């Protein structure tokens, strides 16, 4: 694939609204996982909630889109001048030439959960409930198109926890095919009862803040996030040190709906393909943002996959100890963390992990490390055995 520039990007999660806040948290090693006090949930688990969503107001014309997911979306779009950058791209390319490719796993499902509690005597959902504008997966892209005045092709990819990594591949293919000139990619997932109680039912949630790759790791902490990037082919006006997407690898485990292949065969295939597309050898990757959910089986499968693909250890960490597992938003959130790593030279520590499980053979970072970075890889794996790896690069140059 031809490299694509991430000319603008932003993210909002439990560790901060926008890039500066997120970077401050990462630099300070400050996580945001706290005992679950979401809605009416009574579960012995920790979550990474974005504070203040209750007070976000949607434009009146989009009132029927009101949902936790879209409040988070709107909040995040306004950070780091991202919405303004998209509007500039609209002025440059035209509204039909910018694609919107976003990932989510549960979209606005919380609104349906709440509506089910408010069913009328005859079992009907309340008249205020708007399925198509809130719960449906596509509601996310629909909302973003309306907020930003975009009229080009749009899709929501929903492949569980790989969703918003896979959108980078779909966008690259659309640009390559000449359907669009630029793409708004990203992912948004917000807290809801389905995922909290669902992962609890699968016995995959930890009672304490998740500890990816720790010998005593015992499950995930669910988080929420919105992360976006504007992808464009680099041109003469693209600054030389712009972060570029150079490789995408996708694969399936073909093994089990909710457990990874124990040797991470699908994960290996995704990483190898991403490297091949980028034209890189494994030893050229300087940092890996691991999927690293914190469950015993996920982390050991990913570690086996990484040690199979990378002959010598590569500095790596999972940032889910800070943000929680943001599910369908994780791919985009962690791509943005990788882009920040390239921009600043910060390889963020994996929080909550005292020491990495020595049996896993990773060079796992339990403290921040600063070195100029040029090539990094991010992993995202999901239910259904859906795997996606991204390679991001930045030309040599001064780092902030």
């Amino acid at each position, binding site marked *: *694939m031809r490299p694509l520039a991430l000319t603008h990007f932003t993210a909002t999660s439990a560790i901060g609204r926008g890039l500066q806040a997120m970077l401050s948290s990462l630099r300070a090693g400050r996580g945001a996982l706290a005992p679950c006090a979401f809605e009416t949930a009574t579960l012995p688990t920790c979550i990474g909630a974005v504070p203040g969503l209750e007070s976000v107001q949607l434009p009146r014309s989009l009132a029927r889109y009101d949902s936790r997911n879209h409040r988070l979306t709107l909040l995040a779009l306004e950070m780091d001048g991202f919405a303004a950058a998209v509007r500039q791209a609209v002025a440059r390319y035209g509204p*039909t030439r910018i694609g919107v490719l976003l990932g989510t*796993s549960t979209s606005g499902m919380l609104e*349906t*959960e709440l509506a*089910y509690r408010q*069913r009328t005597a005859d*079992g*009907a*959902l309340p008249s205020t*409930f*708007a*399925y*198509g504008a809130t719960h*449906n*997966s*596509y*509601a996310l892209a629909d909302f973003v*198109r309306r907020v930003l005045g975009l*009229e*080009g*092709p*749009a*899709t*929501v*990819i*929903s*492949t*569980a926890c790989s969703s918003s990594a896979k959108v980078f591949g*779909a966008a*690259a*293919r*659309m640009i*390559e*095919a*000449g*359907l669009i000139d630029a793409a708004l990619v990203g992912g948004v997932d917000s807290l809801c*009862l*389905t995922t909290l*109680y*669902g*992962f609890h*039912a*699968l*016995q995959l949630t930890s009672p304490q803040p998740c500890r990816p790759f720790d010998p005593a790791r015992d499950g995930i902490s669910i988080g929420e996030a919105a992360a976006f990037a504007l992808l464009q082919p680099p041109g003469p006006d693209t600054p030389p040190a712009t972060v570029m997407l150079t490789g995408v690898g*996708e*694969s*399936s*485990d*073909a093994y*089990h*709906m*909710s457990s990874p292949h124990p040797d991470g*065969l699908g994960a290996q*295939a995704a990483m190898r393909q991403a490297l091949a597309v980028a034209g890189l050898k494994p030893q050229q990757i300087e940092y890996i943002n691991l999927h690293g959910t914190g469950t015993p089986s996920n982390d050991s499968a990913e570690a086996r996959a990484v040690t199979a693909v990378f002959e010598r250890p590569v500095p790596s960490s999972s940032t889910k100890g800070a943000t929680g597992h943001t599910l369908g938003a994780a791919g985009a959130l962690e791509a943005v963390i990788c882009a920040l790593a390239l921009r600043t030279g910060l390889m963020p520590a994996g929080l909550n992990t005292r020491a990495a499980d020595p049996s896993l053979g990773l060079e796992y970072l339990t403290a921040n490390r600063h070195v100029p970075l040029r090539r990094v890889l991010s992993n995202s794996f*999901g*239910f*259904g*055995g*859906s795997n996606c790896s991204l390679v991001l690069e930045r030309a040599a140059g001064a780092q902030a």
Partner: protein
Amino acid sequence: MNARGELSAVVCGIGLLGPGLVDWPSAAAVLAGKHPYQRAPTCAPAPALLPPAERRRTGETVRLALAAGLQALEGTRTDPEGLATVFTSSGGDGAICHEICSTLATDQRDISPTRFHNSVHNAASGYWSIAMHSMAPSTALCAYDGSFAAGLLEALTQALARAAPVLLVAYETVYPEPLHAQRPLCDAFALALLLDPRPTEGACARLQAQLVQESADTLEDPALERLRAGVPAARSLPLLRPIARGERGRVVLDYLGPLRLAVTVTPCP
């Protein structure tokens, strides 16, 4: 690819299950005007290829999607293990959604772990890869009423990028009440297209697709038009008509409001 933004592939196999339509040959006979359309409940057979434990866990949505995909591969020499797949659906499994939301509305909230992992939008994609032992890339997407055109665009761009065949499966089942009142899909329907970007022996038609701002085609037969308008996956029917008739034609498919997908269909010799 010819013009800027024009995508092209040949259709090498078609699978179809819908109300009164048990497979592509029966649907083709109706679309070609050889048989009258008679509506009957859609049947989704159990996927024999899945191991029994997995088979028991599948609901109607997954069964329908897998059955359509399998039909499209029948009689072709395509190796399903290496075949990339695109699954597109506006809603996923409404029955599971209903069960989860009903349980969460009680004090117990003990949702079934199997239902939870089957509730993901990519359930059909995951079960397909398990059934076919396919580690090839597979995606699952949604564009509400434009889900079929969105899936066709994704499948065509993948075929172009990989220079290899791609299986597209568009599927939809009926939501139970009270969701049905909010999202009144009229029938269960699934269509699978095996698309190849290279000229291929045995292909039935070439498709050339382009984004346009024109109005979408409708169908003359009122019952078929009701199906087209009533199920996002059946917005594909205007595309299937010239293929069924072995005719050249240009159709405009619903996508995102004013933005639509024009497809030129050329029969393969």
